[in-house]
């Protein structure tokens, strides 16, 4: 198999994988019955999914868990959460967080 063919097949593989994950349940639709407790637990799924993505992205560095001031990413996240809680502004949270990130990184000479 040439490299060109391999790459295209791999791209189709990722496409198929994404389709299976995103659409199978939608296509099965109402035929899928879940226990009521699972249905109500799913209400917390969005928040829990986001929390997992956010926490591992902000706290984990290539050297492992870093909750000190030398890791500006979680400080930026904290600032973004505070800004959003105070002003309900998404744009403010994003740019405020980025500003805090740059500030701390400059401070620690990173």
């Amino acid at each position, binding site marked *: 198999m040439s*490299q060109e063919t*391999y*790459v295209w*097949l*791999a*791209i*189709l*593989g*990722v*496409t*198929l*994988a*994404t389709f*299976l*994950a*995103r*659409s*199978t*349940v*939608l*296509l099965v*639709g*109402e035929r*899928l019955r*879940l226990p009521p*407790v699972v249905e*109500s*637990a*799913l*209400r*917390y*799924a*969005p*928040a*829990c*999914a*986001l*929390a*997992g*993505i*956010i*926490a*591992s*992205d902000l706290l*984990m560095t290539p050297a492992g*868990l870093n909750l000190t001031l030398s890791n500006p990413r979680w400080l*930026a*996240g904290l600032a*973004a*959460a505070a800004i*959003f809680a105070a002003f309900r502004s*998404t*744009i403010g*949270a*994003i*740019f405020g*967080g*980025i500003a805090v*990130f740059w500030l701390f*990184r400059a401070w620690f000479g990173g």
Partner: protein
Amino acid sequence: MTPRAAFRRGMRELLPFTPGVFAWGLVTGVAMAKSGLTVAQSLGMTFLAYAGSAQLAALPLMAAFAPLWLVTLTAVIVNLRFVVYAMVLRRHLAQLSLNTRLWLGYLTGDVMFVRYSTLLEQEPDYPQRVAYFAGGATCNWIIWQVASVIGILAAGAIPAQWGLGLAGTLALIALVVPLCRDRAALAGVLVSGAVAVLAHDLPLRLGLLLGIVVGCSFAIALERRAATGETAR
């Protein structure tokens, strides 16, 4: 309300997340170009798969000529959170035509999914919810693809030390804060985050999935306990 108005509202409510979605699309585009994919292959991948984290997970495997089944399986597992999303969405979309469901499935992304479930909580009787979802998801798709194409074409000009990916994560924070509206939700968020960090060394982002399962279980247990406590009083 007309579907068109709801579609526009969906688009409008996604717009504040533009910096985050854009930065992520850009990072993914740059990563594809820098991993040795040609421009045509990168464009093919972003338009066919449209799955940032799965694309990023597949790239190093593809660079190493890993078996195709492994690339595909990795992408399935990285995408498992979409299965959870689809479980939430399926009740609302079940009655739609096959074609529409396929399109909406393709367009489902993290940001619009959470916006949509927030709408369901705040306005449970909102009539044109599918049009609302479609509007926001389309808007997300456009922003992402524009950014991704720029990233593919301008990969050499975008230095990694800008920390662009951070903007995407900060956008998610703006999404999660309003969801922490009671003790059960807040506890679920903290538990899920902690589990994801502790299980970070698990392969294929399985720690994330574990976090969702443990976080949701914890939240629902707290909710039930609070409910029985109230009836006892």
